[in-house]
């Protein structure tokens, strides 16, 4: 776990900054500070939280906000299966530990490869959880004083974050092929499917890994 915290160190400032931005965004969308912090603590998945709050802030229904967020997080069911083997202990322990599986902790701990290290994943997840939830609290309390977070480039920051994580994965030609396939599927489906579906469908690009010994 200590190694995981060390691996996460370069990411923690980003998690805090993004958490602050999310807290401000939530307040700007008339979500209470307590609700914003509870959301970061339980959902702990930035892009889906931003999506849900954006839907609510834009006057959308609760159902639309919930469906959008859960579709975005549907990939975690797939990701969870890829690391399931290494989880040990009783149901409660596995349930608790599984909450630390997010894009960042999974990608930085060898998720989906034989080198996956559950303890590194837990360390990364825990460090980011503290930064993200704490940042949200700060942002939610400051909210209203700061103004509209989209003018700070919150959305551009998320795009850059995923780009940085993608760069850590592009170590083989096959990885490039899978990435290109995933990007293409997402781009093609975005205009025709509800948010979340393009990302879920992009996992099909991983089939390019078939035939690998």
């Amino acid at each position, binding site marked *: 776990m200590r190694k995981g915290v060390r691996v996460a160190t370069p990411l923690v400032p980003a998690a805090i900054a993004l958490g602050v931005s999310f807290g401000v965004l939530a307040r700007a969308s008339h979500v209470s500070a307590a609700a914003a912090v509870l959301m970061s603590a339980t959902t702990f998945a930035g892009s889906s939280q931003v999506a849900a709050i954006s839907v609510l802030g834009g006057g959308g229904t609760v159902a639309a906000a919930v469906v959008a967020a859960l579709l975005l997080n549907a990939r975690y069911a797939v990701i969870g299966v890829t690391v399931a083997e290494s989880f040990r202990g009783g149901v409660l322990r596995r*349930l608790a530990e599984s909450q630390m599986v997010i894009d960042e902790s999974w990608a930085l701990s060898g998720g989906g490869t034989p080198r996956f290290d559950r303890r590194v994943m837990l360390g990364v997840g825990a460090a980011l959880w503290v930064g993200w939830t704490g940042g949200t609290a700060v942002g939610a309390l400051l909210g209203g004083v700061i103004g509209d977070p989209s003018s700070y480039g919150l959305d551009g920051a998320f795009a850059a974050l995923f780009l940085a994580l993608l760069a850590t994965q592009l170590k083989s030609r096959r990885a490039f092929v899978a990435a290109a396939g995933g990007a293409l599927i997402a781009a093609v489906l975005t205009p025709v499917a509800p948010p979340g579906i393009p990302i879920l469908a992009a996992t099909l690009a991983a089939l390019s890994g078939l035939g690998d010994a």
Partner: protein
Amino acid sequence: MSQAWVAVLAVGAGTVVLKSVGPVIVGGKPVPPRLFGILTMLAPALLAALVVTEGFAHGRSLVLDARLAGLAAGALAVALRAPIWAVVLAGAAATALVRLVS
């Protein structure tokens, strides 16, 4: 209870379930080695898709806006082997800057 609270509780509960499906139900069982070829490629496929949706999607349309500057700055930072927090900062700063002047 306000609408926001209902949404927060529903999204939180739903996400907890989604994350736990694999570890709780499948947990402990070995993954067939052949499957690993596919699983290894999940991360690049998923992360590339997230770059597209976070960088270009606006609802159901693909748009070029200030986020493009954020991605370009992020890509430059990646090329310069900057740490991840610097990449994120570059992305946010470039996006905000373009929004400020446009």
